[in-house]
């Protein structure tokens, strides 16, 4: 089922949580809503589910405006961060609940509900635990029950709110791979919320990066990582370093010297240069480069991270050096970013 979010605005007590957000989700897609806390990602997910009503705008399921449909009518599967299982019901009853509460005409027979439940528990690799109560399961198992329960109603869309947020790192990685497999097997249109960029980049077909109630960028993992379209995305996704620069006649300047990077179309003025610390070229001769003094250095796995102080203003940037590089405290290092982007200063 295609989902279209059209110019949605949401306010809580007049405080805007989402400003005019639009998003197209294709049928069968696995989409991640990624952002820091307070970015509005969970609000957007809850709006799609119908757990909140938009202040303005509409949400379409296929061709149909779903904004005024109740939660019950929307037929979405929702998985909560803290599982929200019914603790007085067995695992099988939890999974079958959505079918059991259907009105008489569309409700499957009891035996059929049991069969569906155990089929789904098979899918989430929990067969044999039908008779257990949620309190007797581990966190990872509970979340899988929650997912099976959400899928039991054959939802049009599957929505997951930080589904792995409460689990430890090991289980999280496991469930991540496994969710991808389930998605590929069942083909549900799936939207999940996360603040973990690794999770979003690894799992999703497309990533929606959000900040302060706005969508900053929508794209595949490659797109948002390689061509971030705003300083926020550059800073939020992956490692980044930034340095205040000046544009003069299509050249970038740091303090009083050009650094050998050109931006032919940019107007003169102040700007901010962004690059990845590992994506730099070290130079012997400084003929248009960024040069600085090493003030701190630390070993990070297979490389060395150094912090450089640049120029008279002592701006600090981080870059990565190979382990065998002889840079020591106070030594001078010259480099030029290989891939970079300049964002003009506001105003």
């Amino acid at each position, binding site marked *: 089922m295609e989902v279209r979010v059209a110019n949605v605005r949401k306010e809580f007590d007049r405080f805007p949580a989402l400003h005019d957000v639009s998003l197209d989700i294709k049928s069968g897609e696995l989409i991640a809503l990624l952002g820091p806390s307070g970015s509005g990602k969970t609000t957007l997910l809850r709006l799609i589910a*119908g757990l909140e009503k938009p202040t303005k705008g509409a949400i379409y399921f296929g061709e149909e405006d779903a904004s005024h449909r109740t*939660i019950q009518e929307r037929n979405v599967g929702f998985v909560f961060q*803290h599982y*929200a299982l019914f*603790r007085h019901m067995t695992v099988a009853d939890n999974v079958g609940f*959505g079918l059991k509460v259907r009105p008489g005409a569309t409700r499957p027979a009891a035996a059929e509900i049991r069969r569906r439940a155990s089929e789904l528990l098979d899918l989430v690799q929990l067969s044999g635990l039908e008779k257990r*109560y949620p*309190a007797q399961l581990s966190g990872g198992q509970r979340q899988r029950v929650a997912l099976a329960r*959400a899928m039991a109603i054959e939802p049009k869309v599957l929505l997951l709110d930080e589904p792995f947020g409460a689990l430890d790192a090991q289980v999280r990685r496991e469930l991540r791979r496994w969710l991808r497999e389930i998605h590929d097997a069942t083909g549900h249109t799936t939207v999940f919320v996360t603040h973990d960029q690794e999770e979003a980049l690894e799992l999703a077909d497309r990533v929606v990066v959000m900040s302060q109630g706005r969508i900053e960028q929508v794209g595949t993992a490659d797109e948002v990582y390689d061509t971030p379209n705003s300083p926020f995305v550059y800073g939020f996704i992956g490692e980044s370093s930034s340095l205040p620069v000046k544009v003069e006649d299509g050249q970038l300047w740091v303090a009083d010297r050009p650094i050998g990077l050109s931006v032919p179309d940019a107007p003169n003025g102040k700007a901010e240069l962004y690059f990845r610390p590992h994506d730099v070229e070290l130079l012997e001769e400084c003929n248009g480069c960024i040069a600085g003094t090493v003030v701190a250095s630390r070993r990070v796995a297979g490389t060395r991270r150094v912090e450089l102080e640049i120029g008279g203003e002592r701006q600090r940037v981080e870059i990565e050096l190979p382990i065998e590089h002889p840079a020591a405290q106070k030594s001078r290092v010259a480099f030029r970013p290989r891939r970079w982007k300049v964002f003009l200063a506001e105003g």
Partner: protein
Amino acid sequence: MTTEPAQAGWRFKAPSVIPGFGLTLGFSLAYLTLIILIPLTGLVWRSASLGWTDFWAIATDRRTVKALEISFGTALIAAAVNVVFGTIVAWVLVRYRFPGRRVIDAMVDLPFALPTAVAGIALTTLYASKGWIGSLLAPLGIKVAYTPLGIVIALIFIGLPFVVRTVQPIIEEIDKEVEEAAATLGASRFQTITRILFPGLAPAIVTGFALAFARGVGEYGSVIFIAGNMPYVSEIAPLLIVIKLEEYNYAAATAIATIMLVISFVMLLVINLLQSWSRKRYG
């Protein structure tokens, strides 16, 4: 929320490494013995001095049986009414914000604080056939004061806070997400309440019921004013005990007390067992 699996069978729970188990258990036992066990043993001892035949005669005396019936019957009805309305009051206090909520919340505790005789006199004044409420009910042929119905009303008044105060914290703990989960799965509001919320509240409701019931069985002060105290009709067992005491018939008084004690104990024990069963199941 505990994550421990239910324990199978009986087991003496191993004391933890944190010291204090011996001391606190010893203190608890000594305290319970002193405050509860010794007086109750004295009660049973005293009634045992009667001998079996006399005891049986008192126990099966029609006036005693009637008084016990009235005491336990009215307490049961009042507790049942309190369970329904107390739960609703607790729900409203937790879930809704409205002006005067704190005042109402505080008012719930008044029956705890008020001398019960005052409550009894106030209720009698209201419900007597010339009273504010009584005069409205009289044309309908409903007599409240000086009937068992009056006893029920007094016990409802006395028992309400027990239900509200046991159910309220559990309603506060209900995870909003569980209700939302039920809604996304297609459950109507009614289905969510009956299938999700109510089973979660049931243990607390049973506790509230047990407390209100126990309080109702033992209530004396408020009831004697409104009941009219007619033997065989509206005479409660505690009053009968007082009457026996005033006749210096201590053995008969303790015999009736012992019967009340046994019935109450058995009922509370059953309720407790029900609860521990449901706790074990639902963790």
